[in-house]
């Protein structure tokens, strides 16, 4: 009734293959995009950007990246934090070594460097699967953090061992450093999120995505129809790490500004992103956004309700926040193990028939 595909006929295969085959969906997404690009930048302030929009956008990229590896290709990874660190440090080294180059390219190149590192740590995936692979990627996580802590070259021999982002501009507006206006970093991240989502969607709906999913669903059958398993797995590691690297670079340069590797990119970051895609929905781009939104927004929302509206002490609220978020995760996963994306799919199927049950 509210959501229907009746009358929405396709006459070419190209039409049928498009990103949002259902007209209603398409216009809804266009609306969200226009709103995000044309309205939000004019109304946001520093608090909204730093507490909500930047983390949401940056984690969305990381979640899209990890979802390609775990959700689409079925290779479990616990190395996300480490790969984000690679992106961050690559971006830092590039920013300080080539200050005249546009930061946009630094971020993309940082993604490229991370892709290379991802492929390297993806090599064991040909031999080991499942939990064992997860443990192998865990090694990547600890090794990379150790590396960035121990080798002074990576933090340019600074006394604190931290890296901090120099001020950089894009089209004359500052996007990093302390003097940014709220909308500039927001738009910068939004552009990258949009591009990432589009690229991820294109890859996953085409032959590359089918190869990944084939490996995920049944690797023997994939091989028998001509999928080279090593190539498919390594491309998944590369593309996934590329996005994760971009998000790490943004996390460092645009969001935090200064980073201590063990604190910002520790194992808890790997788990956070993994939870995002599990809660959001494995094997779904929308799920990556939903999961990122859930884990970024829920704590903020709870804090505002508990401290702001109910007037509870901050420390009590902070602890309760953990409890409530944890409980919500469990409830969500019991109600819908396939995540928010599946809930959304079910809701759409119901809306299609509403008000009739069948």
């Amino acid at each position, binding site marked *: 009734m509210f959501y229907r595909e009746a009358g929405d006929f396709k006459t*070419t*295969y*190209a039409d*049928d*293959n498009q990103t949002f085959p259902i007209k209603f969906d398409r216009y809804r997404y266009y609306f969200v995009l226009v709103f995000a690009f044309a309205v939000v930048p004019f109304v946001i302030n520093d608090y909204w950007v730093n507490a909500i929009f930047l983390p949401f956008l940056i984690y969305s990229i990381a979640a899209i990246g990890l979802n390609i590896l775990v959700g689409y290709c079925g290779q479990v990874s616990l190395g996300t934090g480490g790969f984000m660190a690679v992106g961050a440090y690559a971006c830092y080294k590039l920013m300080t070594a080539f200050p005249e180059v546009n930061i946009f390219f630094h971020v993309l190149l940082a993604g490229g460097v991370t892709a290379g590192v991802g492929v390297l740590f993806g090599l064991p995936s040909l031999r080991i699967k499942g939990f064992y692979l997860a443990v192998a990627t865990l090694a990547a996580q600890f090794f990379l953090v150790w590396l960035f802590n121990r080798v002074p070259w990576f933090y340019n021999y600074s006394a604190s061992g931290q890296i901090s982002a120099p001020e950089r501009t894009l089209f004359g507006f500052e996007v990093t450093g302390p003097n940014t206006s709220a909308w500039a970093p927001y738009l910068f991240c939004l552009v990258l999120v949009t591009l990432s989502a589009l*690229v991820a969607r*294109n*890859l996953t709906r*085409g*032959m*590359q995505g*089918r*190869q990944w*999913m*084939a490996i*995920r*669903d*049944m690797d*023997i*059958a*994939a*091989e*028998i*129809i*001509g*999928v*080279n*398993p090593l190539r498919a797995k390594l*491309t998944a590691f590369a*593309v996934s790490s590329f996005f994760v690297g971009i998000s790490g670079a943004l996390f460092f340069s645009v969001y935090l500004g200064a980073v201590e590797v063990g604190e910002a990119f520790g194992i808890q970051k790997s788990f956070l992103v993994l939870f995002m895609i599990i809660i959001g929905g494995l*094997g779904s781009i929308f799920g990556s956004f939903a999961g990122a939104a859930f884990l970024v927004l829920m704590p903020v929302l709870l804090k505002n309700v508990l401290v702001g509206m109910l007037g509870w002490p901050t420390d009590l609220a902070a602890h309760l926040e953990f409890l409530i978020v944890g409980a919500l995760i469990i409830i969500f996963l019991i109600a819908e193990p396939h995540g928010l994306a599946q809930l959304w799919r079910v809701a759409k199927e119901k809306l299609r028939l509403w008000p009739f049950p069948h």
Partner: protein
Amino acid sequence: MSAQESYVTEDGRTIGPTVMEMKNITLRFGGVKAITDISFDIREGEIRAIIGPNGAGKSSMLNVISGFYIPQDGEVWYKGEKRPPMKPYEVAQQGIARTFQNIALFEGMSVLDNVMTGRMRQMQSGMLAQALWRGKAEKEEVENREAVEKIIDFLEIQAIRKTPVARLPYGLKKRVELARALAAEPSILLLDEPMAGMNVEEKEDMSRFILDVNDEFGTTIALIEHDMGVVMDLSDRVVVMDYGKKIGDGTPDEVRSNQAVIDAYLGVAHD
């Protein structure tokens, strides 16, 4: 008739020269000999059956052809050339497609995506083109979709093309698996028990599809099947295996009257 001359069957199909030849294949797993010194050939355009009691080594034979097992002895000749040891995906890229005894579909994907995956060999666009969905990638996607839709029409699975495979009943899954193998436009199609676990109607449907595939696309088919009636009706020539050895080879009529085959299936009195 010599092995290399083409001839025309009673029902008007042309059987060409040998396309694949197995020469003295021996396959061992440790001390167990799964296949002992077996030779046979598959000719272009024919339906070749491999039969035998349980544990005779039929599936092992198919796995040798499709590259899962590398035989310890013997040679595989394909299209007039000796085939070096290959990985399964390389075999697939040479144009040999197969189905499995217990369905091996991608459960998380739609029927359409499953069948499209069969077009691996025909889709060569690079990752960058795919990421941007421009140029070759977009063109290939549409062209191959057309080819896939023809196969979907052919196997009469239009109504379920967007359904996730996990939701389908057994018989349809078997058909989707056949569609996926056909989508590769294989020169040899290997079917491992295409009719296992089906009722009479489903078997009839499947038999019709196999005959149609062979007839319309001229696809060479090698199949393993336990239903003797089906095998004798469908196939042009039959290889019979027992305990890893070849005990018979010939037309269905020849095989049916072969004493060794009758003994293997019915048992012999030991007195």
